[in-house]
């Protein structure tokens, strides 16, 4: 398989460059991650993150032939060669495919990503109907891989001010949770020309999400709630 891979090691490289590899695959190598591991066995200086290899940990997000995705669930058979692999766009590169995700996590942390409920804890579980629980589907499954936020032009321009699709999806996950009591504070936190309203429904996030989630819809629901709150 022919790969063209983004290489940059600040220890030795003045600037980034693309490096071509021809990698022999075994029949059992089905996913792009398998190919990258073969590559690393040949050239151990090539650096990337990976862990679960089944699409649940969110480590191996990268830009594959121009589109963000997870290497571990991207089938090699579906890829046009040479496969061009770059780090996620818009974040500072530490080395090769490894990006600095501080800004991404900072935005996630900015939405108070935990259930707030200050009523005394009952002896048993807080009750929630199956219908209310269903509201969390399509939200709680996010793996924080950053494929969405780093495909979003609004996030590229204002990563410090715009929460981005991943953070906003999680903001709505807690608004939608019937056990959470801080909806008003959460809406206050987002009522801002940048934090929420930089989303222009370009929908790149929906297009790339490896878990099939829909941040744009969640963002729309937050906007609806803000409108409802004013009238």
């Amino acid at each position, binding site marked *: 398989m022919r790969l063209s891979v983004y290489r940059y*090691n600040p*220890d*030795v490289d003045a600037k980034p460059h693309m490096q071509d590899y021809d990698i022999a695959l075994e029949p059992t190598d089905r996913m792009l991650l398998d190919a990258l591991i073969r590559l*690393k066995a040949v050239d151990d200086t090539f650096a990337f993150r*990976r862990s679960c290899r089944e699409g649940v*940990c969110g480590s191996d997000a990268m830009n594959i032939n121009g589109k963000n995705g997870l290497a571990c669930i991207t089938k090699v058979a579906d890829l046009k060669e040479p496969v061009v692999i770059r780090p996620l766009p818009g974040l500072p590169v*530490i080395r090769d495919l490894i990006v600095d995700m501080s800004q991404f996590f900072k935005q996630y942390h900015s939405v108070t990503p935990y259930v707030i409920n200050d009523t005394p804890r009952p002896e048993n579980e807080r009750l929630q*109907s199956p219908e209310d629980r269903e509201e969390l589907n399509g939200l709680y499954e996010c793996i924080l891989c950053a494929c969405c936020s780093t495909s979003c032009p609004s996030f590229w321009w204002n990563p410090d001010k715009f929460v981005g699709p991943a953070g906003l999806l999680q903001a709505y996950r*807690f608004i939608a949770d019937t056990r959470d009591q801080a909806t008003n504070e959460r809406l206050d936190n987002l009522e801002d020309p940048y934090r929420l309203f930089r989303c222009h429904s370009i929908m790149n996030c929906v297009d790339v999400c490896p878990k099939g989630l829909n941040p744009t819809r969640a963002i729309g629901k937050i906007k609806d709630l803000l409108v409802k709150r004013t009238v």
Partner: protein
Amino acid sequence: MAITTRQFDAVVVGAGGSGLRAALQLAEANLRVAVLSKVFPTRSHTVAAQGGVSASLGNEEEDNWHWHMYDTVKGSDYLGDQDAIEFMCRKANEVVIELEHFGMPFDRLDNGKIYQRPFGGHTSNYGERAVKRACAAADRTGHAMLHTLYQRNVRANTQFFVEWMALDLIRNQAGDVLGVVAMEMETGEVMILQAKATLLATGGAGRIYAASTNAFINTGDGLGMAARAGVALEDMEFWQFHPTGVAGAGVLITEGVRGEGGFLLNKNGERFMERYAPTVKDLASRDVVSRAMATEIKEGRGAGKDADHILLKLDHLGADVIDKRLPGIREIAKKFANVDPVKEPIPVVPTCHYMMGGIPTNMHGQVLAGHDGGAIVRGLYAAGECACVSVHGANRLGTNSLLDLLVFGKASGEQVVRDLASDSIAHQTLPKDAADRTLERLSRLDTAQSGESVAEVGAELRRTMQLHCGVFRFPDSLAEGVRKMNEVAQRAERLYVKDKSKVFNTARVEALELENLVEVAVSTMVSAHARQESRGAHDRSDFPNRDDANWMKHTFWYKEGNRLEYRAVNLKPLTVESFEPKARVY
């Protein structure tokens, strides 16, 4: 050599379920805690747990902790310590309810309570029939749990050291642990993190096998650190082979599939578990099911053109149930097995999944100083898969791992809080050579101009484990395995990495991980070779039966001298009568 030292009350190594649960306890007690993780916390392997966490909530049908305790003792093939098992099963409801209060998105019953499903080996009334005890968030329970625990730690302002790898424990002359030597992966900088309490929560090491459900990061780092520091490793011969890993890919398919009503078929379309476990059939313990599957394959009744796998049928559950309760499984089957389980069965094989053994601890997470008596290593704690309490004995029940990490993550955190409060201990003086051994290891990697390839030695290690220490074990093959593994260990002393950079040097990380895998693999092979009986996940062709007269004991492996000692199983629970060993039938 000058090396930066930072001081904390406590250092937690690992930010999976047990590390995060422990850290929460420490942060909420306002201790200065540093949580180290090789990966961002939500990327830890707890994220991959699927089916559920056990607790006898009795939300759908009658249940109680004593039944759960019986099932766990029986599941362990009577190698589990009954005091610790009682402790865990009694604590289950408390920690699961607490998790719900933290915001865990459990599935719900119509009355609003937590949804529960049946799981292997969990029964009502001491083995009468399967019981609904597994509290689930669809088939993403681990993901939901790990994120919830991380979120709760964000709330508690826990201090994380993300993408830091702990390399070695620091012990003084008296044997006390005073912290760790660790490396920041981004810069390659090595530091001493000094602590009054060091808690290992490094998870499993399933990457010693070629076919594994485990993530790449599961390299037994805590076990390697412990072994190098002179701490024993307990019951390392007991590795769980999960019945349903996707054939060829290794990716896990939850037992929850069978809990929801799926079952296994051989090539003749026979539901063969009816022969092996007439009462609970496909919901027998994992060791029993995996052995049955391996037997079917061995005797020529495997499916596929090479007769090398078993079929997991669930299409009869219907698309609605599958999409509601098992959506992640459908996704995995499509991606990794090229089948849509709504229409076709999933090809599966027993796959290495979980380490029952680990760093020996008591039920408060304190690490035992040795096989003899209850003395502890001052300053050292362990919890979760890296620890051996032992609640899982020779075979863990499904959903008891998530329970283990909640109960013992919390208990060890509480113990640290108690120890630091009552002792009013100050930081001890670090030995002058605290980091020397670690720096030597690193320096050897940095200066070596030739040597063994990490990828090749790693592959040989995994092949050897797979071939010589699998579901069925044979005396000659084990002896050969011990010999080969010693060779692998010697090769691993001469590792060479081309990459000499300081910045995010993943080649160096993989070399360091391999050194830890070697400790795990050697201890496993040696312990397995020595245990002359069949119990739980350890099945010997030459000793096909359990031998309670001679082997009702835990194995303790010491790195120094590659030596084995033993310690009697604790049959005495905390408050109830013992469950006496009897034949294990499902």
